């Protein structure tokens, strides 16, 4: 299979969907000729023109609200925030408007929009450009939340998100944009359903449940343990809402040991939810040890590269949690 980058995969998903459906438009800051801050949309302006690839002013609230309003009235907008941190500026339009529209109007409308936003640390961009705020949006019923970890998943999940009739927050991992992975040829239209986790590595001794950038790191950890004869199963949940609870529960039952890994600060993070899913289920009776969470430290992401690398889960901190319960 050919290999393309995570950024290319996202561009392909958007472009293919826009070719398929004329009512899909794409809006955001500097996404046009400039091609987006991370180059994700390079070439799209040339192909689809300014009617469908709309450069906006720096106006996160209006981008998000306009996408919601357009989605309510017949279009299927994809909106891009330059950094997921700027969801804070768009929060009313996202949480109070887009997420609630269908329910509060008794099912009269749907809001088929995707809000794409690069998240996560690792680029030295410091406190205001490095956050992992996914837990905030998972807490708003009405929104779906997706975080892909590979080019293959990014393309398949984004296509599904675009075809979904709900507002989907699609958080991309800025550190993964340049990573490559296998993706089917352009002609092979494929999608990945939301709410289906992917077992990225099978194992029988312990389960790591993770998502986003921490999938690769968890796989590295699993490789390390494999050398010692310990088989770790790595589950990439891929979509946080809806969540594939069954997959997590089954794996916990199989291995009896669970470590949850995510980059976002641990307190109030999505890891608490993942942990609850397991201990709330009959998997609880199969557990041989407490469920361990390895989240980011409860600090803003610092600028200094050494510090930045140490405030999120590392090979060592994940390994330490594993060793505690093995």
């Amino acid at each position, binding site marked *: 299979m050919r290999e393309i980058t995570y950024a290319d995969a996202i561009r392909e998903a958007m472009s293919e969907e826009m070719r398929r459906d004329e*009512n899909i*438009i794409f809006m955001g800051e500097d996404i046009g000729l400039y091609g987006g801050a991370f180059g994700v949309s390079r070439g799209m302006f040339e192909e689809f023109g300014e*009617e469908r690839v*709309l450069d*906006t*002013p720096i*106006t996160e*609230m*209006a*981008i*998000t*609200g*306009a*996408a*919601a*309003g*357009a*989605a*309510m*009235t*017949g*279009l299927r*907008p994809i909106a891009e925030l330059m950094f997921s941190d700027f969801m804070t500026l768009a929060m*009313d*339009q996202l949480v*109070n*408007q887009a997420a*609630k*529209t*269908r*329910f*509060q*109007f*008794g*099912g*009269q*409308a*749907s*809001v*088929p929009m995707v809000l794409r936003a690069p998240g996560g640390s690792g680029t030295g961009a410091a406190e205001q450009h490095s956050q992992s705020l996914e837990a905030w949006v998972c807490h708003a*019923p*009405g929104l*779906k939340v997706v975080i892909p970890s590979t080019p293959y998943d990014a393309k398949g999940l984004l296509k599904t998100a675009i075809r979904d*009739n*709900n507002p989907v927050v699609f958080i991309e991992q800025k550190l993964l944009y340049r990573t490559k992975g296998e993706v089917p040829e352009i002609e092979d239209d494929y999608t990945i359903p939301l709410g289906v986790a992917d077992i990225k590595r099978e194992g029988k001794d312990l389960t790591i449940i993770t998502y986003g950038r921490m999938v690769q790191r968890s796989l590295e950890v699993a490789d390390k343990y494999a050398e010692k004869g310990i088989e770790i199963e790595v589950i990439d949940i891929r979509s946080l809402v809806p969540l594939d609870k069954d997959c997590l529960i089954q794996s916990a039952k199989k291995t009896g040991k669970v470590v949850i890994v995510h980059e976002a600060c641990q307190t109030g993070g999505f890891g608490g939810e993942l942990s609850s899913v397991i201990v709330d289920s009959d998997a609880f009776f199969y557990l041989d040890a407490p469920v361990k969470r390895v989240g980011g430290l409860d600090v803003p992401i610092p600028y200094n590269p050494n510090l930045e690398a140490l405030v999120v889960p590392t090979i060592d901190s994940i390994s330490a949690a594993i060793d505690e319960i093995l």
Partner: protein
Amino acid sequence: MKNTKGITSHAKSVKITKEKYLDMYLKMVQTRKFEEKAARLFVEGKVHGTAHFCIGEEATGIGVCSALENEDYILQTHRGHNQGIGKNMDINKMMAEFLGKETGYCKGKGGCMHIADFSVGSLGANGIVGGGIPLAVGAGLSQKYLKKDNITVGFFGDGASNEGTFHEALNLASVWKLPVLFVCTNNYYGMSTHVSKSMNIDDISVRASSYGIKGLALDGNDVVNIYKETLKAKEYVKENGPMLMVLNTYRWFGHSKSDPQAYRSKEEVKEWKEKCPIKRYSEFLIKEGLASKDDLEALDKQAEQDIINAVEFAENSPEPKIENIFDDVYAD
């Protein structure tokens, strides 16, 4: 009380049918009676929550919406019964929603602060001050993109015009030249705060100039002029992109049902009550020979009966069931 200067103009050339004149009158009276009844239902303990009444402001929503087609969209405010009735919403379903019933517009899940009727182009009222203004931009974007010959009206208050949403939305709509008419109902207060304490301008319509769009300030109690100006504005925004129309009026009641109104004098309220938009309109209709006193009394009676029917419909409607609570959180 400051007087707004602003640009005013009279759209004398527009012809209005007698039917239209009387329809606007009926809707203004329906709005008033709807709210008077709603206020009584609170006193009788039949509803909980809150409601924001637009008594005294009827000319704004009725005047603007009477100039719209079904396919034109509106985004309403928390004080939007006049906007909804003006856009031909079903009064029975409005009342049922107000009482939180299954037969209400939102199946009892939204209440009157979140009422909507997509079938008549109402994209919903909003509990967030200024929350609907960016949505109006999106609706206008759809209309432009889909090449529809229609416009979107985004309603909001004077207080909302201090929110970021207002500024971001006007700017974006202007840059994209969208067919959006932004309508500010200036009733001079955001809860207790007089406009003179929330902005350093007398005339809110001057805010339009920051976005390179046309601003217009009108007497918000003159339904005929509002109607005519909206007809003109519709053509204007289709051609040129957005416009800001400010309607200066007054709310007679408190901000919501629990407001002692310590922030304004009885004299001020009295002064504005004398400028009642319905009284003024009925005098106009009689003076112009468009209706007799009897005609108007008949319409008053009809409005009264409409509201009695609506309450009966609502009270006899079933309560929503908790079994259906997850319906519509997500679309299929």
